[in-house]
């Protein structure tokens, strides 16, 4: 226990200072939603068929270095507790219906965020036999984050756009 305490003292703060507030272009409906959420967004992640590269970046975004939680976002376990659904990966045939049901389980007001190129337009898996389509072909998408995988700073910037902090 003392060793851990010494390590905490030695390490100090790991979180990088927050960059300037990003200028995100959102639709008026999305802006209205952000106003309603007022600085608190609970996020539920759904892996619709990704290679887990985006998951690693999301894990990093909510980790100590980038600390997505300081902007009022939090990862939750159940879509009923969530406001935003973070979808990664192209939507495979098996995950199309579960994704729809997950988004339906979220209480209004809700947002869907497509993370990564695969979620936006199937990325490298376009035309593959197991893929049903991009996320916007299955559920309506509000925010897209490009990249393969997107950098944690991009994910954090998108989250900050949702919380407004």
């Amino acid at each position, binding site marked *: 226990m003392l060793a851990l305490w010494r390590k905490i003292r030695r390490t100090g703060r790991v979180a990088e200072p927050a960059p300037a507030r990003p200028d995100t272009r959102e639709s008026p409906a999305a802006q209205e939603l952000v106003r309603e959420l007022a600085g608190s967004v609970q996020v539920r992640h759904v892996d619709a068929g990704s290679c887990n590269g985006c998951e690693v970046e999301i894990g990093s975004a909510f980790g*100590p270095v980038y*600390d997505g*939680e300081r*902007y009022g976002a939090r990862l939750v*376990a159940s879509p009923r507790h969530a406001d935003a659904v973070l979808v990664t990966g192209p939507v495979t045939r098996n995950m199309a219906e579960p994704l729809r049901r997950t988004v339906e389980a979220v209480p209004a*007001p809700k947002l869907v965020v497509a993370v990564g190129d695969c979620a936006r337009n199937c990325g490298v898996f376009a035309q593959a036999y197991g893929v049903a389509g991009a996320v916007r072909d299955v559920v309506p998408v509000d925010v897209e984050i490009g990249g393969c995988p997107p950098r944690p700073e991009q994910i954090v910037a998108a989250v900050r756009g949702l919380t407004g902090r």
Partner: protein
Amino acid sequence: MSALGAVGAVGAVAQPVLIVGGSPLMLGVMRQVRAKLEGRAGAGIMQPWRDLRKLFRKEPILPRGTSEVFRYAPIVLMGTTLVVAVVAPFVTVESGLDPVADLFAVVALLALGTVALALAGLDTGTAFGGMGASREMTIIALVEPTLLVAILALSLRVGSTNLPTIVSATLHDPGRVISPVSLLAVVALVVVIIAETGRLPVDNPSTHLELTMVHEAMVLEYAGPDLALVELASAMRLTVFLGLLTTLFAPWGIATTATPAALAIGLSAFAAKITVLGVLLAAGEVFMAKLRLFRVPELLAGSFLLSLLAVAASFFLA
């Protein structure tokens, strides 16, 4: 309340308001302390209130196949916690409703809240709901004996289980607090509080893995205002339990006279003590990992032994 008059009545209203308003703040402080110790920046102490405000404005959902038990369990949970927040003597030495301020009654009311939530978990008919209810009931079944025996140990010296009486007796005889009886009872009660409020090492309140959940598994189905009630009630339960700990073992600062100054001191002393305990609890959690579920009964059995030792000590060291 009769002796303290109008100021006492103000105290009886101010106390639940302070608890309702302050428990999310305390939760925020605890999360900040954890964040700072883990090297993160943290979301700020107002974040739980922001979460609650947002949740209250969300759409309420009624899952198909559930019954009134699911629908009204958050109200029962919140109602019982509110009654305890009014009745327990945290700020003034007289209770807001003395005939209900019995230590057994307070403990049983808090258990009633847990039972309501467990029944709601079972009512969903999902595997996780049943799992959460089963684990929560196992923990309650093992925590109740420790609680009741610890209450026995505390009330033996005083000759009553009435909360205001115990508090007054401790105020008049401060040396009692460092007796072996009190020390043993304190340790037993700390373990009980950790188990009942679902903190590490018994339960991880921020886990995402359903197989490690106890409390969270029962509320997976709640959304919007229902979830807000459940979260607020959980924060209030933590505050109330910590408040019971301070009021039974460290009641100094509590208002004994009917003056506004005493009331103000009582409110701030209560807030300060709860904050200190919350910070200690949060700091302790950083150093602990969650216990495997089947190791938790060993922990609870240990606390039961401690409370039995407290009762034995109160005989032979009388």
